[in-house]
């Protein structure tokens, strides 16, 4: 009996130590995000010293900071800062949506891009771009700047529901079906997008190219504003559902036995994740693999507990996307690589490695 008590107290101490480490890890991720944001504002065609960046930010907050070069202030306020904020929001949204879908499907390979949710969002957005002036004019005029994110949200919602229906049976999801359904949906949405591209005029075509490859270029304050509203909700709400996510990993029936209203929660999660992906796709096009890579790295470092995974994904997702954007716009100056190509180059091999490791497991 004494040895049992001893073993228990060692286990409790171990868990408490781990929780403690996780809290520090979240703090470290927050710091990382701030540093990357600072770099992202400082580096570009005009390099601005980080101290100057802090002075401009301080000046905007009404602090007495002394002399500032006006052209630096202009570059920061009208170009770098909105782009940096947009990168943080989009990265956080994609990573949290990825973690949420992996929790929902009980599968670490679920990614909004791989299972077709992003493609569904993009198809709906392309519909609005190409048909917005004709067939759907009454909608776009009624909804204004929200019509694109809203369409992307609805597209994402529908594809998530379709994939979920296809891949789960009796509360079990099959990875094989999930990924195959993703291939089919990606192909269908790609065909739809291709058809619309064929119908598009020159101006629309330029807009569309941006969708297929993903970019944070052209970030503006109005974009940041509208997308922040839409992304804030899932970004705050999903981490609050952390215990529900943990329970759902036990299985749908088991979560129900623990007092979770399973169906209602699953619908809520689908809607929130689709909102995050839809809003992100609406402003930045198709940026893949963020939702796959970020939660996976965090699980390796901090374990699968969603109370740390979801906030961690928001912080690390923002940082990584910003870092990728920094590379995308500095590697081949003065031109700019589409960020989606960069994340695919990095994320593709990562996904293959993950798949190889999973191969032994039952699917």
């Amino acid at each position: 009996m004494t040895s049992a008590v001893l073993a228990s107290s060692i286990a409790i101490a171990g868990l408490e130590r781990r929780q403690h480490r996780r809290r520090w890890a979240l703090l470290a991720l927050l710091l990382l995000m701030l540093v990357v944001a600072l770099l992202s504002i400082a580096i570009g065609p005009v390099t601005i010293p980080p101290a100057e960046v802090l002075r401009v930010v301080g000046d905007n907050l009404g602090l007495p900071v002394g002399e500032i070069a006006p052209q630096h202030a202009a570059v920061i306020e009208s170009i770098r800062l909105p782009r940096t904020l947009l990168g943080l929001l989009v990265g956080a949204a994609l990573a949290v949506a990825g973690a949420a879908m992996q929790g929902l499907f009980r599968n670490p390979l679920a990614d909004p891009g791989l299972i077709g949710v992003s493609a569904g969002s993009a198809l709906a957005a392309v519909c609005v771009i190409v048909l917005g002036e004709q067939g759907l004019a009454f909608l776009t005029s009624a909804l204004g700047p929200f019509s694109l994110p809203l369409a992307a949200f609805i597209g994402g919602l529908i594809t998530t529901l379709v994939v979920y229906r296809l891949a789960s049976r009796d509360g079990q999801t099959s990875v094989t079906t999930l990924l195959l359904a993703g291939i089919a949906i990606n192909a269908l949405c790609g065909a739809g997008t291709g058809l619309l591209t064929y119908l598009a005029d020159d101006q629309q075509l330029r807009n569309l190219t941006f969708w297929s490859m993903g970019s944070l270029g052209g970030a503006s304050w109005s974009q940041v504003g509208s997308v922040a509203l839409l992304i804030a909700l899932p970004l705050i709400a999903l981490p609050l559902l952390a215990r529900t996510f943990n329970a759902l990993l036990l299985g749908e029936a088991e979560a129900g036995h623990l007092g979770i209203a399973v169906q209602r929660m699953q619908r809520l999660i689908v809607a929130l994740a689709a909102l995050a992906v839809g809003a992100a796709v609406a402003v930045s096009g198709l940026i893949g693999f963020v939702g796959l890579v970020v939660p996976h790295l965090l699980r390796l470092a901090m374990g699968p507990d969603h109370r740390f995974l979801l906030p961690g994904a928001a912080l690390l997702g923002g940082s990584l996307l910003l870092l990728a954007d920094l590379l995308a716009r500095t590697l081949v100056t003065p031109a700019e690589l589409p960020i989606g190509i960069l994340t695919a180059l990095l994320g593709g091999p990562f996904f293959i490695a993950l798949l190889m490791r999973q191969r032994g497991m039952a699917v």
Partner: protein
Amino acid sequence: MSLSASDLGVIRDGRALIDGVSLTLNPGEVLVILGANGAGKSTLLRCLSGELRPDAGEIRLNGVPLAAWSSGDCARRRAILPQQSPLNFPFTALEVAAMGRIPHGGPGPGDTRIAAAALAAAEAEHLAERRYTTLSGGERQRVHLARILAQLWSPLPNDEPRYLLLDEPTASLDLAHQHATLALARRWTDRNIGVLVVLHDLNLAAQYGDRIALMKQGRLLALDRPRAVLEPPLIEQAFGLPVSVIPHPEMGCPLVIPRQIAA
């Protein structure tokens, strides 16, 4: 107060999975469900656990219809041990056990202590730091047992009766752990808890059950003390296997021995 089912019926694809089943699980007793494959044991358990809504009949938990309880209140009164869980994320065993505290607003620091104690009760304290994904089937089963013990760890106000439903808890366990698990379930009846166990082993049922419900083709064949249910004609009727029943040499409970099947 009890967990009671009256006149339950479940129909799927035009076939009655269970039909006219009535039984009452009282706090303080171990009620064993026996029956051949497809006899409706799991369907009955899924009805009692609220997972499956019966097409006919009613289930009451402490006098109140199941549907009238909030899911949280239900979870504080009734815990279910699944045959297996699809969990495939690398939580530690202690973290899995602590999930049993979710209906109580956990897991917080106090809940971690309860989870550790529950692991010890399920003879799984040495697994606490291990990743769930690296455990064997039997070890996983004991971690889930700890999880549902944690769920019902502390009594309710006024010591309201609570219920444990165990779906083939011994299926992947070795001999010693089969007996340890059922002995533990027996001990927990002292906490004003009623235990319902689905089993395949008639002798485990004889040894640990206060009452046995024998099912065949969705119906209750018998519901009585082990001595009355474990009679060769009833067993042969339920399982289609001729048996001899002799008294256990030490405990006096029935001991069921299959006889040679006529070629």
